[in-house]
């Protein structure tokens, strides 16, 4: 399922009503990447899995709305961030405290780069990203995890490129405060 033709075939099959095999392929192909983004946003495994599952469920239900001229991944990301936005608003209102935090750093994660513990740096960065407001989280995850261009982020989130840039700018300023100095780029 690497090529766009494979993606088109998958979308076509879903539009035809889909079956368990098609859903299996959808999950296999797009699940891991969505789950990683969801984990970065949610910070706990259970919520991340739920967010990923719900994203794919919504995608299956709304598959006829997908325009095949655009990126399927961007469309899925768009659904994921919309769902996360709603969840985030609920969280802000209800002030839920999560206890299902990510596990401790695995012992066998190797050192990377200039001697800094990569896993510790990664966890620190992810924790800082989760402290951002949802709009800022979305642009940060898409830009730096999804490695999208400004135009792609704008298209995915249905906002203007200028808004993307100003949110990234704000996020960078906020993250500078949240990330320990020795771990800043």
């Amino acid at each position, binding site marked *: 399922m690497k090529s766009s033709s494979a993606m088109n075939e998958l979308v076509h099959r879903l539009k035809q009503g889909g*079956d368990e095999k098609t859903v299996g392929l959808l*999950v296999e192909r797009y699940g891991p990447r969505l789950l990683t983004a969801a984990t970065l946003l949610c910070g706990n495994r259970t919520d991340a899995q739920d967010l990923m599952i719900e994203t794919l469920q919504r995608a299956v239900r709304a598959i006829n709305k997908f325009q095949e001229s655009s990126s399927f991944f961007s469309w899925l990301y768009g659904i994921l961030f919309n769902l996360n936005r709603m969840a985030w608003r609920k969280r802000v209102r209800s002030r839920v405290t999560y206890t299902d935090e990510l596990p401790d750093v695995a012992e066998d994660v190797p050192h990377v780069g200039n001697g800094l513990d990569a896993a510790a740096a*990664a966890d620190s960065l992810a924790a800082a990203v989760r402290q951002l407001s949802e709009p800022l989280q979305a642009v940060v995850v898409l830009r*730096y995890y999804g490695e999208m261009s400004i135009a792609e982020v704008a298209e995915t989130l249905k906002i203007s490129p200028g808004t993307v840039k100003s949110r990234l700018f704000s996020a960078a300023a906020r993250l500078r405060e949240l990330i320990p100095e020795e771990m800043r780029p």
Partner: protein
Amino acid sequence: MTCETCQLACYDLLDRSLCEKDERDVLAHIERCPQCRAFLEEEGARMRTWPRLLGIAAREAALPPDAAERVAHALEVSHVKGALRLSKGGWARIFQRNHHWTALASSLLVLAGIGGAVLWKTGTGMTEVCLNRTAACESSVPAVMLVSQKNVKGLDLPETLPGTLRLESGEIVVRLQTGVELTLIGPADVEVRNGLRVAMERGRLLANVPHWASGFTVRTRDLEVCDLGTVFSVAREDDVSDVFVFKGRVQVSESGCGDWGLETTVAEVGICQAGEGVRAVSGERPAKIATDGPEAGKLFGSVQGGLAVRDPAKALATATRIADLWAERYMPGSNLVAKKMRIGNGILFQNKAWVRASVPEQEGNNMNRASAAAVLTAAVMMGVGTTGATSVPIQIETSPGFSRHWHTVFTNEVGLKWEWCAGATHAELDIRGMNASFATNFAGVTSNYLWRAFTTSSPSVEDVYDLHLTFYNGSDAVVGTLTSRLAVMTAAFGKSAVIPSTAASGWTKVRNDVVIPYDATWAAATANAASSRLVIAKVGGSTQTNAMPDAAGYYGWKLKNSGWGYGTFNLALTFPGMAGEWDATVTRPVDGIMIRVR
């Protein structure tokens, strides 16, 4: 331009989406503004490092085992919605459905706004939904999913992790739950510990790691490779570990020397970029290698980036060859060279001689050790660029009394075939040309080999290759050798027969290094000659005399990077003991590589 405007434009600058004028303005501002320059550098660093870090941060993310089943619930709802739409669309069509009565009832009830009836209605779809669930459960993502396989024998895939993946022979592609795709070429033993970590006892592996799985690690006895978002290969054979990067970067560390399973503290070897790698021989310090020199550069160009994923076997063979070239150049005589030269370089070979399907395999082509002459049989592709070309296995005999030891090939696929001499347990095939050379080893069961001399379907550069097949017994003593030679042509000579005339087109269309044909039978006066001599004299320069032990064949004149330089060359071809001389004048112009014969 204000600093704020400039800094916002830095995002576009990094995306390369600014127009030329804006880019000039932004760069001019950055030139004189340290704050904006710092911002640009900071943002660049974020873009370089954060994708990997964010990938590592989510390293424990794992698909729930019931993910497919849960997503399949959406199908249920979709089907119900479909029924609703149908009910609105036309009653007649509803009655044509299998569950038309229940669908009709449910649609009517829903339309009437009776909420409780919805539950009853969906019950009609439950049979279908439950079936879906069962099937979806079965199709949940396995720990190690087999994506493709080729000529596979003895494959054992783990069902749970950690587990061991074993492959006796052949090539497979598997996908881990993290999306990491591994191409394995057997024999291979790989312990898959989780979606981001494997340990390879032996075998050859190409890893295609999506950026979200950065941090994926492969460990051998000698080395540990941590991916930084890339495509890389790891080979572990006969106490030698090789790592090579085709795209992106990896962090390579030295594994501890403890027993297998006891992974001791690691020491860094360094970060390898695309085109770099590490070679390690057990018990010695690993050496960082790099694509170095024109031959290696050319080889790397054929597999860099995504090209490696398209042909993993070739990519692995190329990586080995690049490491060989580096080791031969910078560490001659070390174990890094000597041991590796005995290792198969991974070029595909088959148990059956390669022939085009249109031509049945012919009998009597086997290399016959009993004959006085050493014979290599080549399935030779004729007719470059023609569709439906056929392969004709042709004997190539090296007997001086029968000068048909040469043959030309016009394809990148040459099937070689031989018989084993008595007492031989393994053999080494060494092929050396003007532009490239490589060696590969065979076990006693292999007597066919498909040699791909070029990456393209037809040769882009002409060359002359000497082939040496050396047989060894169990004590590594030489028990026999076979030799042959091949001229690889791009069609200049190949399409038309070699015409014994300096005016023939074959003599006027050569490029780069020159392949010069010679054949005593061109003239009746020299037809019985036993040997040939070619004298090349550069006008105002040196003279080179080449004595060939045969009367027909091809001489590979290495012009590029061999000190000949540019200029005019006088060529004289004679057959010792015979009257007559063929001569030609070749000019190599400074402004190009085209060589013309005057």
